[in-house]
């Protein structure tokens, strides 16, 4: 086992020695691509179990994916809420805080958006959309601010509190959907369709891609700006790296907790806005149930950096659209999507490990050759 370990490391090290020049940026681009390939490989093996030929499946997938603009536009549409939930986790992660409650904040934001929209029939679209936007961001932000407050005031474990808050949000949403907000027809646990003036207009006609995507990109840029160009962002990052030093630098860490969670929750709440007003146009019980967890995966894949998250979300969007196409064009069930996502994430994690190993090995090698010691 140890020998195999060493061998792999050596081979990988040799490959990398060639690319020594642009080492950092090389890995930044190369490793996600490698991880996706590994993830697809692993999922391909799973397909064999169902007696399907993965090569055929993937080939069909690519054929259908780029057949027309609809699927490509769908990738951006699907990635829109993922960008936002990814930003939610990633932003909090910069402060070393774990916001596991993005799913709940998403639902709360969606609730606020749908309630707002249902009451704004007839209003000018710009105002209606603005109102829903503000409502969802505020709702998500406040819902998450509570978590930050419990951490600041009671030193509560935010991992647990945020996780529990999701289930409470789900309960609230279910209660409302089955009761006061239930559609007029009364058949299914969902709301009525929101009026047309509250719909986010499409970016590309005859596709599902809507203006929400641009909003998500804008939010990513804003997150970047906050983190690296403002004193608030500086304080957040210091708190994230070293809380003790932050205190000694006069930073009010408790206030930062609340602020970070509020912003994080607002991002997740906005995801609800984009889904309700841009995609679904109504609130269906239990929709997008994995969007919070996927956001975590995306944030990791993107190294908790807004630009990385943007790209990672597009990747996941592509995986989703691709996964859906696979289920439509072959006998493979939808659960393959979760498998692909899981494998890709694990591949990314393993690549981090390998990177570190290689770095250490090369450093030792450099030292030995410098000192001329033979072993």
């Amino acid at each position, binding site marked *: 086992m140890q020998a195999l370990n060493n061998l792999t490391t050596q081979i990988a090290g040799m490959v990398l020695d060639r690319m020594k020049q642009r080492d950092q940026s090389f890995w930044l681009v190369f490793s996600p691509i490698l991880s996706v390939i590994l993830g697809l490989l692993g999922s391909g093996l799973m397909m064999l179990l169902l007696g399907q030929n993965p090569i055929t499946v993937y080939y069909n997938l690519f054929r259908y994916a780029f057949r027309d603009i609809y699927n490509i536009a769908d990738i951006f549409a699907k990635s829109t809420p993922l960008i936002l939930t990814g930003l939610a986790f990633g932003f909090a992660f910069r402060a070393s805080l774990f916001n596991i409650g993005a799913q709940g904040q998403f639902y709360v934001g969606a609730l606020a958006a749908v309630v707002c929209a249902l009451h704004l029939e007839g209003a000018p679209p710009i105002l209606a959309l603005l109102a829903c936007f503000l409502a969802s961001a505020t709702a998500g932000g406040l819902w998450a601010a509570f978590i930050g407050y419990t951490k600041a005031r*009671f030193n509560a474990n935010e991992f647990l509190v945020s996780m529990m808050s999701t289930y409470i949000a789900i309960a609230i949403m279910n209660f409302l959907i089955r009761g006061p907000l239930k559609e007029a027809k009364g058949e299914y646990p969902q709301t009525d369709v929101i009026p047309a003036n509250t719909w986010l207009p499409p970016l590309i006609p005859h596709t599902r891609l809507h203006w929400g995507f641009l909003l998500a990109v804008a939010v990513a840029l804003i997150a970047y700006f906050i983190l690296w160009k403002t004193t608030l962002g500086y304080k957040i990052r210091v708190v994230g790296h070293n809380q003790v030093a932050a205190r000694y630098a006069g930073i009010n860490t408790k206030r930062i907790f609340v602020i970070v969670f509020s912003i994080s929750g607002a991002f997740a709440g906005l995801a609800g806005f984009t889904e309700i007003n841009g995609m679904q146009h109504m609130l269906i019980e239990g929709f997008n149930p994995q969007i919070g967890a996927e956001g975590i995966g995306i944030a990791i894949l993107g190294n908790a950096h807004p630009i990385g998250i943007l790209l990672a979300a597009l990747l996941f969007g592509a995986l989703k659209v691709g996964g859906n196409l696979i289920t439509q064009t072959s006998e493979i069930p939808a659960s393959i999507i979760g*498998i692909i996502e899981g494998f890709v994430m694990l591949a990314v994690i393993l690549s981090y490990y390998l990177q570190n190993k290689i770095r250490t090995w090369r450093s030792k090698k450099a030292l030995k050759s410098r000192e001329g010691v033979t072993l």
Partner: protein
Amino acid sequence: MNIFTGLLGSALRMSTPLMLGALAEVFVERTGVMNIAIEGIFLIGAWAGFVGAYLSGNLLVGFLAAAIIGMAYGAVYGLITVKFKQHQIVTGTAMNILALGLTSYLYRVLFGAPLLPLTVEPLMDLPIPMLSKIPLIGKALFSQNALTYLAILLMPVGYWVLFRTRVGLIIRSTGENPEAVDAAGINVERVRFLAVLASSALDGVAGAFYSIGFLGMFTSGIIGGRGWIAFALCFLGNWNPVGVMLGALIFGLADALSVVFLTSGIKIVPHEFLIALPYILTIIATISRRRFNVPAYLGKPYVKESG
């Protein structure tokens, strides 16, 4: 059977997997590792248990399968977090997402998509001869299934192992100061990895309880966050098997209550509120408890050779 007995019995039953999962989490967290993949392993256990029981016709085979496959799944988590020292929350989340996809997919691989869900006969109650005749509590306490009896016995055993044996001392010391353990010549990584394995096996069995111990079938939503409740219970029970047992009973009771209210049609509070009750309780408990005995090195990978 009156309401009280039914409720008590139901509470014990519902708390069984929580007790097992939380005890498992106590042991692993005492060594400093959080098993974030707990929800996924519960699901894997539920799936493996059902598959094992269905294909062999024997529930015991099912539970064994759940333990072994759960342990195997946990081994991957252990390898990545303990040996490769990667982030526990990130790895756990990945494995939870993967578990959802894998279990659904592999169920389909094995059984296709039948119109009616496949079922097995779940665990039967094993009444203890004389004790179960005791009025009021007899039927609830002493007419349970085998796994519940096991879980109840396991808790004091777990307490004894953790606090009165050398193994328990090593486990506790690893979470409090791995350097002390290292300096004593004990391999910290091995202790942690074994703890992950053991807890994953137990988590698998706990998950299997839902599919073959209670419902008699497998669906992808069968765990529905209860693995996380077990996780929270470890915390709320202060990393102590006794505290965990109490917590599990309380949550089992809340679970049982919500079922009672739902089936009897009584509507004092909205049904959803009762479902949310365990989670609200968790938050309240997290806030109100000021001094927790968190293992000092919980969540921190042990890095030995630092430059």
